[in-house]
């Protein structure tokens, strides 16, 4: 083989390999810095995810190839990100079986063990919503149901002086009113004509799994060891020996400062 040919071949190989290494290092830097301020991380049971992990405690969980089963109230997991972000849009795919309420919390204060809890599933509200017997109004994250069409807007209802015993609330604070709460102990009262909640009814898929989306502000959340701590709360599983929730996917879409915002360009 001529020496010139060998040298030119060697140079081509060298150029290709070094370019490949540079591209790989560039890719790693991009993944760590996230200069566009947006990244998506997945958890799927059976796959080892560095980003969404540490499901605990183990005695409240059953891990299978297709899903992770929550068997007890309060299960924790981490969202590990290479840098800090401002906001997360969490999407969960789950099957609640017979559970009444499922909520997800984000750790805000480690010392006080304080979580910001948001609902993902409320069987009572879902039933009222889907029954067709109740008028439904939605505004942002607020859902308002009324048995008879009395109010034309949520604002009109809030401005009215509706009797407390006719209202039920969930994850909603009506000032100066002690209304019945639609939690795991809720018993339907025939006087209840209005329901107001900070809640988004989850989307039901064909295979009986639900999809819920939640938005959390991460700016004031605890970030320890590159991780944000989350909690899944299922109050119905507290003392129960039966019942479970199957989770088959968690998607975390994070948003943060872009490089332009970082350098104030």
């Amino acid at each position, binding site marked *: *083989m001529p020496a010139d040919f060998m040298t030119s071949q*060697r140079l081509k*190989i*060298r150029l290709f390999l070094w370019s490949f290494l540079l591209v790989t*290092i560039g890719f790693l830097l991009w993944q760590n810095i996230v200069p566009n301020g947006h990244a998506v991380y997945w958890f799927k049971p059976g796959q080892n995810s560095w*980003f969404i992990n540490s499901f605990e405690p183990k005695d409240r969980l059953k891990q299978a190839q297709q899903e992770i089963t929550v068997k007890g109230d309060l299960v924790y997991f981490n969202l590990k990100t290479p840098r800090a972000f401002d906001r997360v849009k969490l999407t969960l795919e789950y099957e609640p079986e017979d559970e009444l309420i499922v909520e997800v919390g984000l750790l805000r204060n480690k010392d006080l063990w304080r979580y910001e809890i948001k609902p993902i599933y409320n069987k009572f509200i879902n039933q009222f919503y889907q029954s067709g017997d109740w008028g439904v109004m939605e505004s942002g994250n607020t859902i308002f149901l009324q048995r008879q069409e009395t109010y034309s807007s949520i604002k009109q209802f809030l401005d009215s002086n509706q009797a407390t015993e006719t209202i039920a609330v969930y994850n909603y604070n009506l000032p100066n009113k002690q209304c019945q709460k639609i939690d795991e102990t809720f018993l339907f009262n025939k006087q209840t004509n209005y329901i107001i909640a900070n809640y988004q009814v989850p989307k039901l898929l064909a295979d009986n799994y639900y999809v819920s989306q939640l938005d959390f502000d991460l700016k004031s959340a605890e970030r320890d060891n590159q991780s944000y701590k989350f909690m899944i709360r299922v109050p119905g599983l507290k003392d129960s020996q039966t019942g479970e929730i199957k989770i088959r996917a968690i998607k975390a879409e994070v948003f943060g400062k872009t490089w332009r915002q970082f350098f104030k360009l």
Partner: protein
Amino acid sequence: MKKSVYILAQEVFKVMLVGNVVFLIMELIKPGSVWPFLNIIFWLIIWLASAIIIVIFKVKSKAKM
């Protein structure tokens, strides 16, 4: 063994050596900055394979002499 394979192995060995050192430094500076995004085992295997090819080639060429 063809000389072109030996040349390729030499080049791969050098690039992978630099790559693995860079990845190691990155991991030491910030744990979790490499392995969640890159299959390091794959890189190490290729590096090792290239080293084995170089050694075999050298042993064979010495035996010929």
